[in-house]
């Protein structure tokens, strides 16, 4: 019989590996059973909004947690920013330029020539939204408007660059470190205005104890080690 009530965690697709390992650890330690559900954050959020049986939600985008808060699915005190990430500029492995002056619109433009910069779809992919903001901040709105190709997920953007279809792309560092077909050409400085954070939230007005325990575990040191193994930054303070 079970040590605790079954738990379901809905998590952004980009956290798949890390969450699966963390969950497996937790299951081994506590003998609790945890179901993991991965999809685009927006998809998961709408499902939770429609009554999906989720206990926790790890979103790649704070907006969706806020959206759930507004609809009463999440209480403000039951959310924390669990993870942080960085955006990196990537190029296909073996591209002649290994480092790019990422703050210069001209040099990026020159490098792209008539190719396109692969980013997530700013409308639907958080990484894409962050990338768009970064490009705007760096005065590269021209590139954003005319020289990007938008993917339905970071993974697709990564694949485009890895296959050389796009000469460069902007993705999370977490994704970039594992993909073999690319190299990191530069890391974008974190933006204080729009920090890249993955909020974790307990779902429901009165979350159950088992979920709460897992919520706590994900903030614990062992979990933090797992996350950083996958390239995430653990956000320590609120």
């Amino acid at each position, binding site marked *: 019989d079970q040590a605790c009530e079954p738990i379901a965690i809905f998590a952004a697709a980009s956290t798949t*590996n890390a969450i699966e390992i963390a969950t497996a650890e937790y299951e081994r330690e506590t003998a609790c059973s945890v*179901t993991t559900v991965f999809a685009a954050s927006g998809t998961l959020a709408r499902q939770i909004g429609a*009554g999906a049986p989720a206990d926790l939600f790890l979103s790649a985008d704070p907006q969706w947690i806020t959206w759930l808060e507004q609809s009463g699915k999440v209480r403000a005190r039951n959310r924390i920013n669990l993870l942080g990430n960085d955006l990196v500029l990537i190029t296909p492995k073996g591209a002649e330029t290994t480092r790019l002056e990422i703050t210069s619109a001209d040099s990026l433009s020159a490098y792209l020539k008539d190719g396109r910069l692969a980013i997530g779809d700013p409308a639907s992919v958080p990484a894409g939204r962050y990338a768009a903001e970064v490009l705007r901040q760096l005065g590269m709105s021209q590139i954003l408007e005319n020289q990007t190709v938008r993917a339905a997920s970071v993974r697709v953007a990564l694949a485009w660059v890895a296959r050389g279809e796009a000469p460069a792309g902007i993705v999370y560092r977490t994704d970039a470190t594992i993909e073999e077909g690319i190299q990191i050409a530069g890391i974008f400085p974190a933006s204080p205005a729009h920090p890249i954070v993955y909020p974790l939230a307990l779902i429901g007005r009165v979350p159950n104890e088992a979920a709460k325990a897992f919520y706590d575990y994900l903030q614990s040191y062992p979990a933090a080690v797992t996350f950083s193994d996958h390239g995430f930054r653990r956000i320590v303070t609120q």
Partner: protein
Amino acid sequence: MISDLTPAEWIALSLSLKVALTGVIVSLPFGFGIAWILARTSFPGKILIDGLVHLPLVVPPVATGYILLVSFGTNGPIGSWLLSQFDIRLVFTWQGAAFVAAIMGFPLMVRALRLSIEAIDTGLIQAARSLGASPTRVFVTIILPLVSPGLIAGCLLAFSRALGEFGATIAFVGNIPGETQTLPLALYSALQTPGGEQMGYRLVMLSVILAIVTLAASELLSRAMHRRLTGQTS
């Protein structure tokens, strides 16, 4: 290849089959009814029904998924009624995935059935009734066998479509391993995972093999049916 499937792959495969099969079986009576109406009756507004039937083909699957979520979700108008009246819950269950499969394959099934129904010789039905057969007996002994080629084709198409269905499924029932994570969803997850291409490749191969097996089975079945119906050997 089949022998060294991981347990997770096995689960996704069997779930896909269960979902697609259930979807086809559930939609069959409705598909038949609609196809019959479209083939054998004529009334104003028939073109509207024809249009409605084709909608799942045209409307993007994601949108279909969200529409289903909004209307058949436990908070949705139809979903809450189903739950309270029949204790049927579709969202986030494999039954819901089967329901999506049924909806998405519906236009293809209706079209194939309609062609077959249009081809039935009314004279045979009249002959059967003149021999004392009730409408039910006529249906079972005459109409069903004669429609069987269309039935097979329709089921095949709907089943194939169901096997490949992704967008509406993930939006409506989510990607829950063991419950709603069919092959396409598992494939999606694999592709979302860094280094998941290898697994993705295996899942695609699985889909392809499934498709070929399905097709070959339906082809053999429909040849046998053709032979039964025409008595010809080819």
